[in-house]
C-alpha cells in the first residue's frame, strides 16, 4: 500500500473557538449557564471551584456526579442547547 499522505489541518477563518482548551470551554460554559458564580463565592481556589461547579452542573443535568471534566460532561457541554441559563436569573 502507498503510504498515507499526511493530512493537512487548516484553521478556518471565523472558527477560532475550536482552539479553546477543554478547561477553558468548561469554565466558559459553567459561567455562561450560571453554575460558577455561586460556587466561586464560596471560593477555595480555581480547581476546587471548577470541581464544585461541575458537580452542580452534572446533578442538574442528570449526568454522573463525578466533579470531573469527563468525556460525558464535555460532550454535554458541546451539545447544541438553549441559551437560557440553567441556574440563576
Amino acid at each position, binding site marked *: 500500500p502507498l503510504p498515507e499522505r499526511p493530512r493537512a489541518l487548516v484553521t*478556518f477563518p471565523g472558527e477560532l473557538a475550536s482552539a479553546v482548551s477543554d478547561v477553558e470551554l468548561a469554565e466558559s460554559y459553567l459561567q455562561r449557564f450560571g453554575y460558577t458564580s*455561586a460556587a466561586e463565592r464560596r471560593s477555595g481556589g480555581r480547581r476546587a471551584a471548577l470541581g464544585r461547579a461541575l458537580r452542580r452542573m452534572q446533578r442538574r443535568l442528570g449526568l454522573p456526579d463525578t466533579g470531573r471534566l469527563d468525556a460525558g460532561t464535555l460532550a454535554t457541554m458541546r451539545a447544541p*442547547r*438553549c441559551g437560557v441559563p440553567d441556574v440563576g436569573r
Partner: protein
Amino acid sequence: FLTFEGDLKWDHTDLTYRVLNYSPDLDRAVIDDAFMRAFKVWSDVTPLTFTQIYSGEADIMIMFGSGEHGDGYPFDGKDGLLAHAFPPGAGVQGDAHFDDDELWTLGTGIEVKTRYGNAGGASCHFPFVFEGRSYSRCITEGRTDGLPWCATTASYDTDKRYGFCPSELLYTYGGNSDGSPCVFPFVFDGTSYDACTTDGRSDGYRWCSTTASFDRDKKYGFCPNRDTAVVGGNSQGDPCVFPFTFLGQSYSACTSAGRQDGKLWCATTASYDDDKKWGFCPDRGYSIFLVAAHEFGHALGLDHSSVREALMYPMYSYVEDFQLHADDIKGIQYLYGRGSGPEPTAPAPVPTEESEPEPSGEPEPTEEPEPSEEPEPVPTEAGSTSTTEEQEEEEEEEVTPEPTVQPSPVDPSRDACTERSFDAITEINGELHFFKNGKYWTRSSFWKSGLQGAFSIADTWPGLPAIIDAAFQDVLTKRVFFFAGRHFWVFSGKSVLGPRGIEKLGIGKEAGRISGALQRGRGKVLLFSGESYWRLDVKVQRVDKGYPRATDDVFTGVPLDARNVFLYQDKYHFCQGSFYWRMTPHYQVDRVGYVKYDILQCP
C-alpha cells in the same frame, strides 16, 4: 420542572404572537406552521390560546437573528446556542429569538419546498433520477434559464413531477418588493453586484435589489437560501461552488479535508486558497418546531427541567413523534391550570370487573384498598428509648413557656385529600404523617391501610402548637422532634421536653421556619430553612461546624423554597405547591409528582 423565580406567568390566557422575520432556510409557510404547532403543544394542556398577529406589539415577539442581535445575549454561530427566550412580561419579556447561523429544518435534513412546476408545492425527493443520473440536490441541468429545480418523486424520468427550488432568481422574501426575484447585476452605493450580498447590513442577511439599481429605486428583498447554501463559516447562506480548489486540489463535492472533526464543508468561491470563503455543508439541521416548543415554554414561564426526556431539558435532541412529557405538563399546569379538555372522570363508587377506566389527564393513583366505614386510628405513640442522661440534661435547661394553641375539636371524617398543602410531613414509626392546623393523618405503605385520620395533634403530642413546621424521628432513640417558628420540642412517647429555642441547637437568627428534616444515617439530621440547611448531631443536639450550607450546592434540581422536606422510603422529598420532587440518595431527581395523588394516593 422549574418555573422562573417568582413564578412569572402571563396574567391573561389569550396570548398573541408575531413573527418579526423569517429564516432563509425554510419556506415562510413551513415556519408559520411549525410555530403554530409549537404553540399548540402548550395550548393542548392549558387554558391558553395563541393568536398570530401581523402588526403591533404581541405578547410573544419572535425573531431570527445571529450573533449580537439587539438584546445583549449574542448567539455563537453554528451549533452551540440555538435559541433563547425571556420569561413572561412586557417589552422583551416573553420574546423568543432563534439563531439564524443554524440550519433550520424539520430535524431530518434540509427541507426543500418547491414552487411552481407541476407538483403542487411538494418537497423535493432526494435523490431523484433525471436522464438516468441520480441527483441529491437541486440542479439546473435541462434548463437554459439557470433556475434550480428538483423532482418530487424518486424518478423524474418515470413520473415527470417537478418543482422549482428556492432561489433568488425565482423569488425574494421580506423587503419591499412583494417577493419579486433579484435583478442581476444591480447597483448599490455605486457598485455593481451580480449576486446576493450582505453589504450595507449589520445582521448578515443576504439581500438583492429587485430592479437594476437599488440606488435609484430602493426596491429590495432577502434572498432565500438555496439547498446548497452553506451554514456558518464566513459565507453563511452562500451556495457551495463546485468544483473548488483547496490546497491545490480540486473538489467537486463537500469534503472534510483540512478538518479534524470530520464535518463536511465547501468553498463558496472557485478557490478557497485565494479567497478563504467557506461554510459547512447542510446537515440534518435543527427542528424549528422542537426548538420553538421549548422556547415558548420559557416564554410562558417554565425554566429548564432536570428531566432528560422533558421538552424543557436544556439540550436539543431530535424526536420523530413528539409528545409532551409529563414533567412539562405538570410544569405548565402548575402555572396555568388544566386545559379545556375532558374533566377527570369521577371514580365509580363500586368498581366492577366489566368497568374500564376512563382515560383522563389525572395521574393514576395506585391501587388502594377501599376505605373502611369507620377509620380505625392506628397507634402513633412514639418510642421512648432515649437515655436518662440526655433527658436529665435537657430538663436542667431553662424552658421558656410558649402559649399552647388550644386545638379546635377534630372532625375524624375530615379528609386529607381536601387539604391544599400541609404544615409538615414526616415519617414516624414507618408511617407517613401529614400535619395540618392541629390535625394529622397517617398513611402506612407497609400495611396498605390507606389514609387514617384525622387525629388531634394535641391528643398525641400534648403541648405542641396547632401549627408545626417540621418534624422528624431520630433513627436511634425513636424520639420525635417537632419544630414551630423558632422553637422545638422533643417527645419520648407522651413525655416532652420543650419548647426550646432553635438557637440552642446552634441555628442562628438567619433561619426562619424550619421546613423539614432529612435523617442522614445514625445520629445526624439535616434541617432545612430557606435556601440553606444545617446538619444536626442529634445526640449532642447541636449543629455541626461548617453549616449552614446552600441547599442548591447538594440538592440541585429541587425547589429551594420547598414547604416540606422529608425522608420517605429512603428518598428525599421536597414539596412545593401541589407537587413534590423525589431525589435519590445520589442526589438525582428521579420523579416529580403530585403530593395529593402520588403520596396521599387520593382518588
